[in-house]
């Protein structure tokens, strides 16, 4: 945010909080209430035709039941002849329960879990031809079988029904959407079915009492000339060469009773998260702020780390292209081994300054979001269980060494974990090899409004 603020100030431009808001600021807000009933049930079982035997999942059957939040309120503004959704709020909780039964060697066992759907709520999206599209579950983490054996979030990404909403009809008399139906499911080694009994009713649009959306100015052109900040910079740009490395987590079921809900007692296994990236960029900018204490305070407000003598720095890092894959080998209840792997999204690489060092953090997002939906079809701990509130790995680069032609930064992590029915250790090692590509100098005056 500070980076954004600094950027917008430096550009002297105007940033608007919402494009939709700026486009329709003068129009009154319209509101429609959504009421839903019914649920979506996804059932699955190990399918020999889909290779369940090789993965040790033929004795698994399960179900996921999703109940959307019973009511929600959508705000709209007119956009030409159509409607533009500008926000929504839910009422009541969405819920999803996973239940999985494991027969065969080491069985029977049952794993059940209530999924964390704090961020789930109905959403309306603009669709082609001025229409709208209703989705009853917007999830950051996605629906999945959680720690139990079953479909992954990628398998179930499109499992919830969506329905087109005619804007003109919604304006006139609301809409009743029948989202019921059934269709087959294939998910890795599993086959199954998706059965929906959902019905959604959108009330006719009515005017909201609170008027239109207000424009929020994040930044503006300086009035009365603004305040001037004279800054000299020296930027060193490094190319991050292709990166590979792993985070390995041997785990076992937690002591009873913690293991029991997840059928994790006597379970042992290993999860490996493997990073493959084509590389990225690291930019370290040394700055010198001219002027007195007021100038330094202003620079700090803009996100620069500036010491008492006016010297400071700013850093930026990113990774491009690649994946963080997960592979897992686990023996649920000491029985048949389950092996599987799945691709995941490339984690973020974040840079920050601390104590004369550039701190580089891989997967900071995981620490903030609870780990994300990176799972295989086997049972086992989620990434959030393994990491807790920590990133995937982190390391540091001395500011003094910045400028060298080639540098290596080791990103490491090592810790114990105990969460979600499992206990274990994690050990991560990723080496960032940096090659200097550019050094630039400049002195410029920023006008801060």
């Amino acid at each position: 945010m500070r980076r954004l603020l600094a950027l917008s100030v430096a550009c002297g431009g105007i940033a608007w909080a919402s494009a939709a808001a700026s486009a329709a600021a003068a129009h009154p807000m319209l509101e429609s209430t959504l009421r839903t009933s019914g649920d979506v049930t996804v059932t699955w079982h190990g399918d020999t035709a889909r290779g369940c035997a090789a993965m040790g999942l033929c004795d698994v059957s399960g179900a996921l039941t999703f109940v959307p939040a019973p009511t929600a309120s959508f705000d709209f503004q007119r956009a030409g002849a159509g409607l533009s959704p500008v926000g929504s709020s839910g009422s009541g909780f969405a819920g999803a329960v996973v239940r999985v039964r494991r027969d065969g060697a080491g069985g029977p066992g049952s794993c059940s879990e209530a999924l964390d759907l704090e961020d789930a709520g109905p959403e309306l999206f603009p669709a082609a031809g001025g229409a709208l599209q209703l989705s009853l579950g917007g999830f950051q983490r996605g629906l999945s079988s959680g720690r139990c054996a079953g479909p992954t979030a990628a398998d179930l990404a499109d499992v919830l029904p969506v329905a087109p909403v005619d804007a003109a009809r919604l304006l006139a008399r609301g809409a009743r959407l029948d989202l019921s139906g059934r269709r087959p499911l294939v998910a890795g080694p599993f086959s199954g079915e998706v059965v929906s009994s959902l019905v959604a009713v959108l009330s006719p649009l009515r005017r909201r009492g609170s008027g239109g959306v207000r424009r929020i100015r994040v930044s503006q052109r300086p009035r009365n000339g603004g305040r001037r900040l004279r800054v000299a910079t020296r930027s060193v740009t490094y190319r991050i060469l292709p990166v590979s490395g792993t985070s390995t987590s041997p785990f076992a079921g937690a002591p009873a009773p913690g293991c029991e809900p997840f059928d994790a007692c006597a379970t042992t296994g290993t999860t490996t998260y493997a990073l493959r990236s084509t590389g990225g960029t690291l930019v370290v900018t040394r700055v010198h702020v001219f002027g007195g204490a007021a100038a330094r305070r202003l620079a700090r407000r803009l996100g620069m780390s500036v010491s008492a003598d006016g010297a400071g720095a700013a850093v930026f890092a990113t990774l491009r292209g690649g994946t963080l894959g997960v592979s897992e080998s686990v023996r649920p209840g000491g029985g048949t081994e389950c092996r599987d792997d799945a691709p995941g999204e490339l984690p973020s690489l974040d840079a920050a300054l601390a104590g004369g060092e550039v701190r580089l953090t891989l997967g900071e997002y995981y620490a903030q979001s609870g780990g994300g939906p990176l799972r295989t079809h086997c049972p086992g701990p989620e990434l959030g269980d393994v990491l807790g509130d920590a990133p995937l790995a982190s390391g540091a680069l001395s500011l003094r060494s910045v400028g060298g032609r080639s540098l290596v930064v080791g990103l490491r992590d090592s810790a114990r974990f105990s969460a979600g029915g499992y206990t274990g250790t994690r050990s991560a090692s990723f080496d960032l090899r940096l090659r200097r590509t550019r050094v630039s100098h400049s002195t410029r005056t920023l006008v801060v409004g």
Partner: protein
Amino acid sequence: MRRARRDAACALTVVALAITAGAAHGQSSSGGFIVIGAPGDARVLEQRALTVTPSGAVAVSFHGDDPTGCRAAGSCGVSGTVVWTPGSSGFVSLARYRVRGKTTSEVSVLFAGPGRGAGVTAAVRRRAPDGTTQSCADAYAPGYGSLAATIHGDGDRARIRFTTGDGTPGLDLTTRCAGPALADVAGVLPSVTTSLRALRRGRLTLSLASDRSFAAHGLAGTVVSTLSLRLGRSAAVSTGQRSPSSAGARHRSLQVDFDVARLEGAATATVGGTGPGCSLLDACGLTGTVTARPSATHGRLELLALAPARVSGARLRAAVGLRPGARPRGVEVVGGGIIPRGGSVTAALSRPPPDDAPCSDDTVPAAAFVSLVVTGGRLRVDLGGGQDGLADPLRTRCPGPTSADVLGAAPLASGSVPLSALRHATVTVDLARSAAYATGGYRGDFHAALRLVLRRRSVTEHVYRGG
């Protein structure tokens, strides 16, 4: 003091915000703050907040027990485990206040949820007449849990245990599988005794590890706890109480207190295990009824009208129906209360032949929250519901749908009377609900017809300064 009561509903949020904004950064909160559970005329002497990181779980393992009546209950072939896992974080509130010359300290622990793996899960097996073993697996979130302790006088020892303000155990063991009622295990739930001085300092770990057995109503087993609470730094927070001379606009409040004279009637859910989710709940073919007959002859509800002091008391009386006239602008009316647990919940469920062990149970329903809302010249009364944060009103020891399955977010029953009815000393409100449900492996109908009789106890008017 009225302000403190008005804020009571927001207390948990305020505490959470205070923790987040202040205690977590080692600062004192400057926000408004009230003592949870303290009487309205309490003078707050001290209020502190601590973050808590819980670990472990509480597990109830059980099996059918002949000596306590499993044959009659149809639970002889049943065994299983219900596990409650706290959310990944929480907070502790420590308060000391004085009422009429007596000092009381209160400690409360609330867990944030649902979080990673948090909630209630059940794995229950049933031996069928054909010799096979059927299993029910379920999970339920948020699965609330709260711990509290009350210390009268200047004592330093606090026994922190699972409890709520209404006196019932502060733990949710609700799932759709068969299992013991909370009352069956209430006496053996874990607790810990610690010193208030240590709590004030913070940075300590409380172990609630225990292993105790129970036997009641056809089920026997153990309650094993591995629960541990790691408390963070303790931080003082503002009490939010101001001296009489403090600045702020003047407000007028009118509080109408009602005694619950009578709650009677029945709410019945028909139960049919069917649909794609029924097999993993061992519910396919299960049919029967669950009937709640809440009964109360005591309890207290209140209706509170708030307005700037320039609004006369007569107009506030009109706003709550005690006098004729429209509700003036700027008057806020809120109301509600808790009706203590009482009455019965009975389940009579059976499976198709050859299954010969129908499940029958009779237990006491949980306390119920009552909401009073003034709208359109009427007083609307909502009783209980699946998501009011109190225990499930349709829960028995038999398997079956939760009240959230049956009711969604709706109350157990609702009704309304013209505001003018409040002019009488006794107010009778008929509460009803009829609906069909089909979710999570169960479907059926729900029908409630209840009658709530309220007797006006007092009307008090106050003018105070405050935000």
